[in-house]
């Protein structure tokens, strides 16, 4: 490889000058605006979840409507671990990730074959089965009440999860940064390149010798583990877990975030989560009961107009079929 070509390839991968600033700003928010710390925490968890979905949706091209299965599984695993084994958040996090990864590994074999519709149905069905199980196995999961009033030990033995949400927001932001860096390495590695090849043309990827099934299993497992980490962060920082963590709405919202921010771009999920939380906050203040209508309208317009043109309203009516 010649030097200029190498430089060009690396430029796309290297960290841009604004990226550290963005993260610094994110980490400064809980200090500068202490009242907003719980929202920062919630947004960071959503962003982490959206990041995990982007990994399979944007990079491997798997349309999943049931990603909340892994989020909720991680959340419940963390809650059960905290209640029955140990209140330590670090081990709890690892256990939840491990549990979700195992589930993701098992589920990954169901998404290897068939069309988009089949995959949509299988992922959705898996999430619904988990929701149904969490609802009916009430001796284990608390049924519709969920598991409440968990005591979580301080992070690193020093920082308590308090009511002000500051520790919680730093815990989630750190997780987000950590997994962002991990996924960044993954998608820019040769492994990531083969994923994109599979997404763009599965048949050709197979023809040039990419082990398609093994790659899909691997990325699905990784994505499930990260979603599990997001779920565990939810449980650990809020001290409870409910059926909502497994619901269809959660899967759909995460997909919406990835789409708002941009598919196949790691910041997409993060930016999407921030924008989505802001929109939802504004809308639910205006119309508490009917904000779903506006989210729906937003989705319809988004798809009809196209994401690239959404922020340039003057192009909306020009050559829609171009």
């Amino acid at each position, binding site marked *: 490889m010649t030097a200029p070509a190498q430089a060009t390839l690396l430029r796309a991968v290297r960290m841009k000058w604004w990226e550290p600033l963005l993260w610094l700003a994110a980490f400064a928010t809980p200090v500068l605006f202490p009242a907003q710390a719980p929202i920062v925490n919630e947004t960071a968890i959503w962003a982490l979840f959206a990041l995990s979905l982007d990994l399979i*949706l944007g990079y491997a091209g798997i*349309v999943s*409507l049931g990603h909340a299965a892994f989020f909720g599984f991680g959340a419940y695993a963390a809650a059960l671990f905290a209640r029955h084994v140990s209140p330590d958040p670090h081990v709890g996090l690892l256990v939840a990730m491990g549990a979700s990864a195992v589930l993701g590994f098992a589920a990954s*074999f*169901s998404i290897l*074959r*068939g*069309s*988009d*519709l*089949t995959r*949509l*149905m*299988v992922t*959705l*069905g*898996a999430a*619904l*089965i988990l929701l*149904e*199980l969490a*609802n*009916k196995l009430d001796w284990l999961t608390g049924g519709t009440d969920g598991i409440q009033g968990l005591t979580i030990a301080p992070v690193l033995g020093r920082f308590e999860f308090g009511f002000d949400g500051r520790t919680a927001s730093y815990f989630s932001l750190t997780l987000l940064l950590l997994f962002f860096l991990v996924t960044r390495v993954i998608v820019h590695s040769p492994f990531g390149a083969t994923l994109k090849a599979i997404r763009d043309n599965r048949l050709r990827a197979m023809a040039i010798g990419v082990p398609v099934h093994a790659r899909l299993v691997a990325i699905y497992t990784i994505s499930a583990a990260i979603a599990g980490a997001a779920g565990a962060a939810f449980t650990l920082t809020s001290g409870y877990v409910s059926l909502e963590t497994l619901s*269809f709405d959660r899967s*759909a919202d995460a*997909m*919406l975030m990835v*789409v708002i921010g941009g*598919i196949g771009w790691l910041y997409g999920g993060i930016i999407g989560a921030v924008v989505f939380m802001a929109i939802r906050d504004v809308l639910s203040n205006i119309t508490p*009961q*009917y*904000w*779903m*209508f506006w*989210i*729906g*309208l*937003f*989705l*319809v317009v*988004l*798809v*009809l107009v196209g994401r690239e043109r959404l922020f340039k309203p003057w192009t909306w009516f020009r050559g*829609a*079929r171009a």
Partner: protein
Amino acid sequence: MLTILFDGIAYGMLLFVLAVGLAVTMGLMNFINLAHGAFAMAGGYITVLLMQRLDVPFLVCLPLAFLGAALLGAVLERTLYRPLYRKPHLDQVLFSIGLVFMSVSAVDYYVGSTQQIMQLPQWLKGRTEIGSLGMGHYRLFIILVCAALTVVLQYILAKTRFGSRLRASVDDQRVAAGMGINVNVVFLSTFAFGSGLAGLGGALGAEVLGLDPTFPLKFMIYFLIVVAVGGTSSITGPLLAALLLGIADVAGKYYIPKMGAFIVYALMIVILLWKPNGLFVRQGGKA
């Protein structure tokens, strides 16, 4: 035992009428339409509101529900759906979820979020017992109407000129268009007809399935199961899938209420893992 089978068949037939439009449009346009339940809900609300507020007889409401939903389908197809046929599946999924959200909130806003209660006419209430088989009259009525519809649909698809055009377009759009078939008109009328059937199913099912603004979300998965399991290339596939689903669901809820909907989802995943393109795939059509 027989009663459960009977109820399951009634439920399955109802699901078939609700979902068959989705199967045809999905097979025809390769469009993943999650908003199909919204048309069913429209039909259900047309019936319930007409009966409650204007005292329109039940039998008059059914065709009105069909027409209302069909009209809605035709308008939406022409304005919103058509530009999306060639978009990726992800866009279609997002778009139709958006429509579902909008319909749920809109109905909530105009009608209220309470479950609607349908007053059946006197002659449809009651039950007939034959040996161990107890038949609710309304369920019998549903089975008869749906069976008649199935026969008519099969006739239209297999024997009429429109049916052959439709089948040609499903098999290969481009060749069909090349043979002088106006594929757009076929699409439009099929979409409208499918939406109308969903509306009729929603009207018939308002009493059995329950009708509230979350209807499209609650039953979306059921319609999709019917289509995914039954395949999209014929109407016998969805019919059998709907009957299977209906019987499995009713029997599952009766015998093992603890597991609830679990059985249905598990069954679907197993079938899809075994045959990813559905149970009844016709050979020779496009992949």
